[in-house]
């Protein structure tokens, strides 16, 4: 089975699923979501099977590799492979996919063709998500990176809320602008690489002896694209709009998975390919990360739209992730990558539970709620758990990663770590204030009775809460996968952890 193209198959199953769903005859249109769910579960099964093939002790950077010539004239190969980080990201995406499909069960009540297209687009998006994390060819990565904008664009623009047009166009233009800037970097990188028919392979472009100036420019081109994607302050403005206008399931995939491509790209490409430039840019990046943490949190506190609030918490969380990445310590790196995993589940839980509440109330405005704890105690409970995960309560998984990021950053960069720590306090504020405003208080007078959490919704939420608890108490399986990847990256950068006792020289680069 060693030659079985696992990654291609995992990518293809949702694509086939999309075609099947889109091609369902009109008489079977109501089956679309069931078929889509089936395909997403099948993909997950294959994903887990592939993960079992993965060996943590391997000396190769990438495993499950596939490589074929694609456009030899450009030096492009169809090359897939995963390290621990990519595998974890793919698995996270594959776990979230069926959850999102299940959560989106009644998203298109009118049914018919529109419903078919909705689920087909979601499955197409899954294909690109697998591809973007699995690509070990810079050009191929770029192709997936750009191509996945299109399904998201239609998912937001066709199925979103009242301002969906604005949100969709804004999302697309921000991403496209970032992506095209990266294209210049991609072209220029090849020029400095070894060239040839497979000159875009990551392994061939690692450890190049780039001229300092060129390396820094190309780093910038990549970093801008990833910063837009991640999203970091000040190029984050598309996210709140996209997240609030998109359907909750789309928002989960967008914020939980697609935005990870930004931070994933920083680790895989910025750090690995441009070690010198990464260190050169560190002060600015750390500053941006800290601003993102504080700014995102402050804006989250001020939001009255619950979806926008969750989007801003993500801006803050991505600040933490970037902070840990550019701390250049094993603890920070491992914390960031684990954060990427945990954040996927936290955001999913927050968005989806909030969406369940919004669907019942018919409004996204926080002031329109109040006292819902008495109406829907079950939902209030899971919302609280999701919120506590969002503020990194000890015992839930985000706590582990957030502490690791802060500790890892503190080893090398004291001041940013100290400022970032205030983000934790702000997180408690935005989550608890939101909970207080929505859930506590006198029982509201409702026009019609609302149901508490349904069975379907319980199935949606259960795996997410399970993930909080499992990775909160026992993050080792994930860290075992992530640690080697982080160590390899830091090796490429050429830094070692500062000695824990040396307090004085901690701030030297």
């Amino acid at each position: 089975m060693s030659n079985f193209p696992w990654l291609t198959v995992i990518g293809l199953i949702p694509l086939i699923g999309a075609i099947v769903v889109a091609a369902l005859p009109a008489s079977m249109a109501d089956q679309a979501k069931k078929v889509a769910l089936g395909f997403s579960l099948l993909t997950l099964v294959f994903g887990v099977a592939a993960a079992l093939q993965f060996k943590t002790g391997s000396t190769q950077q990438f495993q499950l590799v596939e490589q074929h010539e694609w456009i030899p004239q450009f030096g492009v190969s169809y090359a897939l492979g995963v390290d621990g980080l990519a595998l974890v990201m793919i698995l996270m995406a594959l776990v979230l996919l069926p959850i999102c499909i299940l959560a989106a069960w009644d998203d298109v009540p009118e049914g018919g063709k529109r419903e078919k297209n909705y689920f087909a687009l979601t499955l197409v998006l899954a294909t690109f998500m697998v591809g973007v994390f699995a690509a070990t060819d810079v050009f191929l990565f770029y192709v997936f990176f750009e191509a996945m904008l299109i399904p998201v664009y239609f998912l937001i623009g066709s199925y979103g809320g009242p301002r969906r047009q604005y949100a969709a166009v804004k999302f697309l233009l921000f991403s496209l602008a970032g992506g095209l800037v990266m294209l210049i970097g991609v072209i220029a990188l090849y020029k400095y690489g070894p060239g040839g028919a497979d000159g875009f392979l990551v392994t061939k472009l690692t450890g190049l002896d780039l001229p300092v100036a060129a390396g820094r420019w190309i780093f910038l081109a990549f970093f801008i694209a990833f910063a837009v994607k991640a999203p970091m302050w000040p190029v984050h403005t598309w996210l709140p709009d996209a997240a609030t206008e998109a359907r909750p399931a789309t928002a989960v995939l967008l914020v939980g998975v697609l935005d990870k491509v930004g931070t994933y790209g920083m680790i895989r490409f910025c750090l690995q390919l441009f070690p010198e430039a990464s260190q050169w840019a560190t002060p600015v990046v750390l500053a941006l990360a800290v601003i993102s943490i504080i700014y995102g949190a402050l804006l989250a506190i001020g939001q009255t739209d619950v979806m926008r609030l969750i989007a801003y918490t993500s801006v803050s969380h991505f600040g933490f992730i970037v902070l840990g990445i550019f701390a250049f310590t094993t603890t920070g790196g491992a914390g960031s990558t684990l954060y990427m995993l945990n954040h996927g589940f936290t955001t999913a839980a927050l968005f989806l539970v909030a969406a369940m509440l919004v669907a019942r109330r018919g409004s996204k405005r926080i002031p329109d709620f109040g006292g819902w704890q008495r109406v829907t105690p079950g939902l209030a409970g899971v919302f609280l758990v999701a919120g506590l995960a969002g503020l990194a309560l000890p015992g839930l998984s985000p706590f582990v990663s957030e502490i690791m990021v802060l500790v890892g950053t503190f080893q090398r960069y004291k001041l940013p770590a100290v400022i970032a720590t205030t983000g934790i306090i702000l997180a408690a504020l935005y989550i608890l204030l939101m909970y207080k405003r929505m859930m506590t208080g006198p029982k509201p007078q409702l026009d019609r009775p609302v149901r508490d959490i349904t069975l379907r919704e319980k199935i949606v939420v259960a795996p997410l809460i399970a993930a909080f608890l499992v990775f909160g108490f026992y993050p080792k399986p994930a860290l075992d996968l992530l640690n080697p990847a982080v160590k390899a990256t830091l090796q490429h950068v050429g830094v070692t952890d500062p000695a824990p006792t040396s307090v004085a020289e901690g701030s030297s680069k």
Partner: protein
Amino acid sequence: MTAALPAALPAAFKAADFDYGAIAPMLIVAGGAVIGVLFEAFLPRRLRHTAQTALSLVTLVAAFVVLVTVSAQESHRGFTLARAVAIDGPALFLQGTILAMSILGILTMAEKFGGKGADAFTPMGAAIPGSAHEAAALRAGLSTSDVFPLALFSVLGMMLFPAANDLLIMFVALEVLSLPLYLMSGLARRRRLLSQEASLKYFLLGAFSSAFFLFGAALLYGYAGSIYLPDIAAAVTTANGQLEGLLIPGVVLVLVGLLFKVGAVPFHSWTPDVYQGAPTPVTGFMAACTKVAAFGAILRFVYVGAEANRWDWRLGVIAVAVLTMVVGAILSVTQTDVKRLLAYSSIAHAGFILVAVMSFDRTGVAGTMFYLAAYGFTTIAAFAVVSMVRQGGSEASHLSQWAGLGRTHPVVAGVFSFLLLAFAGIPLTSGFAAKYAAFAPAISFGGRAGVWMVVIGVIASVVTAFVYVRLIVLMYFTDPPVGEPVVAEVASPFTTAAITVGALVTLVLGVLPAQVLDLAEQSSQFIAK
């Protein structure tokens, strides 16, 4: 002076050498065009549309087959017609591209939409718009089937243009390709005044640019004592400086004439008016094929004739490329008419192609040719779609009329969106592969100027992407306008075939471009001696 002349004056008159195998495709097209004229004169009216369509298609297919099987053979490569025509890799690649695209062009021109004659063309071009004469022609069921031989003549000129190895043949080709296009632009069935205005503008400005070209050619002859591009190149390297003053003006004026044809800024002002006024199938044909032919001529002139002193004039062309990208992109934002929008987008694309041209490397030639092929097929299909969308029987070219098309006609809107994404250069469409093929050589070989051009090109791409995306928003996320419904006419198999092929090529060149890239790369060597 006499010392420079002997190269141009043979000792004794010799008949020119004809390599019929090499020029057979052009001869076939010329023959088809002449027969088409005869058809027009002698066939009864009711047969003409069918006969002309069939004849044009057979001619073009035959020419394409001969090109691929005979002319492309190694033995037929080289100079022919007394060195006036060069059949080399770029010439063959571009001629093949022109032929393939003009087949699609003819298919769209033949569209009847259930009427008696070709739908896009006026029953009688000579009649004054709105006159009794015109009404009578309409009642009599006349149809303008003479567009077909005109198109064939134009194709002949286009094929000769990138193969022309001397400036006079290049000029002849320029006129042969342009004159029919001037006429065809004025033959629209609807909005005839706009169409005639377009025709007149195109003709007047085209005549100007031809004059520029000729004057430049005369100066270059004065400088080099020869009109052959390789001789001019040789003269540049060996010149004694006596007539140096003629060289730069000559090159610049010839370039002005050529850049006019591709619609580069500041020689672009005709483009939006002509694209809008001309019958839509003609616009598609002209946008795709003229661009291929004219860029072919630019490539040959620049790489064969004027390459040696490129440091003297490249800054000017770089400025033109930058202006073309920026102006094309920015002005496309303000457009409210689909055809004008595509016109400005074609201007921006011309700028992108110029970036590749200015890399001065074989890969730049290959990139240019790949871009031309990719862009051309997408363009023909896009204009064919535009010609199908109607409101109250006439083309719904105003953007507001396209609102909600994605709901009422999902397939048509879907195809058009895909083509727009290709224009925007989204990966997995030909537009992306083409953009990469054009920009990569500029970064690798274009020096600092190349990098800057690419940076500006990328910014311009984002701007144009906004325009295309807005159109997609309009089609999918906006409610249809009230009033008479906008419909997509049920197209005949002809238009359907053209759109299908155009969209398929757009997809294939995006997903699996290796074959065509390889062909372009192999065909990228000019013969210069």
